[in-house]
């Protein structure tokens, strides 16, 4: 039997990477978009191409983080429990009919912030730390 301090240490080691490695993301819109809250369903519909409209009637412009940003993969895992390969395969099926298209792929984080600030219909996911007063958090995505 291990002594009690050792047990506590083992538990801390096991739990800490999960708590620290996957911090929550927030879905934000332009503060002028007229939207206060979005449901998870609304978020799925907008990002997966079902509807491209905000509840306020404004055409929605979803923006993905750059491909190499870990936030993108984290976002889809939190949103629809799928990895990026699956998301790419999904869009591959739809690409030919032209009915809808994937979210706009930003080149950088700056571009995201820029688009968010300029476009009233823009909607994107960010680290909570990146949010400032220009944006409004409409959904908190946490594990």
């Amino acid at each position, binding site marked *: 039997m291990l002594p009690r301090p050792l047990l506590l240490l083992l538990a801390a080691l096991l739990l800490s990477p999960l708590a620290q490695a996957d911090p929550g993301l927030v879905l934000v819109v332009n503060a002028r978009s007229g939207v206060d809250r979005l449901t998870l369903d609304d978020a799925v519909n907008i990002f997966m*191409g079902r509807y491209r409209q905000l509840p306020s009637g404004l055409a929605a412009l979803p923006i993905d983080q750059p491909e190499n940003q870990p936030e993108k993969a984290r976002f889809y895992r939190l949103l629809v429990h799928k990895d990026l390969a699956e998301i790419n395969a999904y869009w591959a099926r739809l690409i030919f009919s032209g009915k809808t298209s994937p979210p706009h792929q930003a080149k950088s984080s700056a571009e995201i912030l820029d688009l968010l600030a300029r476009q009233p219909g823009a909607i994107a996911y960010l680290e909570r730390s990146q949010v400032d007063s220009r944006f409004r958090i409409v959904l908190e995505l946490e594990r």
Partner: protein
Amino acid sequence: MRTFGRHSILVRSAVMLLGSFFLAGAVTISISLAFTSARQHQAATDRLNRLLDTVESTVRIACFVQDEKLADEVAQGLLKNKEVQSVTISSEDGRARRLLSDSRHGLITSGLRLAREVRSPFNAEKVIGRIQVDANTTAIADDIHDEVRFITLEIIGQLVLIALTVVAVMLVFIVRPIKAMSDGLHRMDATKGERLAVPRNHANSEIGRLVHDINGLAGNLVDTLDQERTLRLDKEVEEKKYHSIFENAETGIFIVDQAENLPSWNPAFALLLGIPTNEVYQGTLNIRQLPWENASRIVEMALNCRLDNIGLSDDLAIRLRNGSRRWLSVVLTPVGEDLLQGVVHDVTEHKEAEASARRLSVTDALTGMANRLGLEEELQAMLRDPLIAQTGGFALVLADLDNFRRINEGFGLPTGDAILRGAATRLGRCVKGSDTLARLTDDRFALILQSVTGSEEAGRIAERILASIRKPFPVDDAQIQIHASLGITLYPKDGADIPGLLRNAELALDRAKTMGGNGFVFFDPALTEAAEQRRHQENDLRQAIQNREFRLYFQPIVDLADNRLAGAEALIRWLQPEQGLIPPDAFIPLAEKIGLIDEIGLWVLDAACAQLAGWQAQGLDRYLSVNISAHQIPDGLPPAALADAVRRHGVDPARMALEITEGVLLADVNKALTWIEAAHGLGFRIYLDDFGTGYSSLSYLKRFPVDTIKVDKSFVGDMGEDGGDRTLVEAVVAMARSLGMSVVAEGVETAGQLDLLRAMNCRYGQGYYFSRPVPAEQFEAAAVRIDKMLAGRVEAPA
């Protein structure tokens, strides 16, 4: 070889097989059709489901983004499968439904449709659309038809193979052998001993057993035929024999048919019935044409015989042409086919003999009148006659000749018979021709007087009869005179039936007899009462024997010469429980009449012997006398019984005296003499009792070995007054002495009588002067008193 016809087993079996196979095949195919169809539908459904599975994810996406183009692509892909006839994809988002794709090949032909809900690719719980597929059933039906066709061909092939095998097996194992047997039977002559051969390889099969059975049956049939032939031959011989018997029998034999005609009869029958032999009846002789006295009797007999189907017999009379009357015994027996066989005997002689015997049985041979049986028949006929009530009745008279036995004994039986015949003739003259006369026993006659109803008329006729019998009968040289007693009963007053009438007439006759004879008495109910009383007495007397109610009393007898007690006479008394002591006169005559005297006599002898044995044991020199009734001699008390009694008690028979009366000698002299001599020969003393009251023939005294005479007390009692009686007693004493006999004087009551007897030299005396009869226990006292009396002249008791 014969071909297989429509009814051959083989053809029938083949038809049956094909029929049942066709039925079985049809049923099998129908079942597999239904089964295959269901299976094909299920398979088609499964295939469509699998097909839908392959496009599931794409359809989900198409519906999610409501992409018509993608949906069409999916639909076209599905339609490439020939089993899919149409595809419809629609999306819904909770509010509106939207058709995304509707693609098809031609018109929808069947009801096989598959529909699935389409769920969101990101949320499996959320329904976002619908996909619906119609199957191409024509293609499925084609598949089903292909499969059923294959099954059908397979079944037909199998069944045809089985049918052929069965037919072949039957042909080889059943039809061929049977046909071979059949052909063999056609050729076979069983009577020549030929038998069927067992078909090859069938020795132990059913066919082989059948052949054995057929051969066995053939054997039995041949045997039976042989027996039949033998029997037929025997029967022919028998028939010839019976025909000859029929022709030559002395018994008449004939056959009667239903129409009462005689189809055949034998010569004996023709002879008996007087049918002329030269006449030919040719079966038309009717039974009524025969000379029956009463033809309806034989016709009725034949009818009954047929109706009851039993043999009947009867005696029938015929009258022949020559006028003679014959009796024939006819026996009719049914012999089947509604024919009766008749057998006829001539029984005329037998009938006549029977009639003669019948006449004899009711006739008295001596007088030619009716006997008792004849009288009873006549009485029966009269009682049955309805006219008897109109004429008012009749009188029945019994007549009995008084003391007829003495005639027979005195003059011999021929004389007696002559008198009976004479009496019968006289009786006949006294009555009307229509009256009936009968002799019942020796000298007893009965008369039935027709229409005599009053006692006056009957009395007149009775007087006439008595008078006619009283006239002397001339027999040989002598004239014999007798008289009769009559008992008269009147029907119906004195009795309603024959036994009653006869009994009452007999009671009346007995009364007439006891009144002295030569008279008549009408029956009176009092007579019945008297008879009744006597019967009571009889019963009492029988009881007395059973209950030992008799006692012996002893009266001393004194030796007058030696002045001492010589012995005693034993006297019987009846100690009746209700009436007390009864003297012998009151019951001995009745005992004699009803035959109890023998038993009583034996008891008396036994008791007397016992008493004597007692005296002997005490050394007393006494003798004892007992009275013997005339009825006991000779058979009631045979000498052997006497010898037995003295031997048993060990007494000296010389001390035992047997007192007999002269009546004994009157009955049957020879038998009585034999008995007396036998008793005397045994050593017993013989006393002649009551001497002087009866016939007192001196010749008897000479002929019989009498030892002592007892002079009757009536003579002794009269000695004192009448000189005649004294002389008589003296004469008896003298005569006895001269014959070497002793004398006992009975009834000595006074001293004077005793003196007289002593003077006559009478040896013994007995009477109240000495002692009354006393019971045994008082006897010794009496003996002592008598001794004193004789020694000291003590006064006799009062």
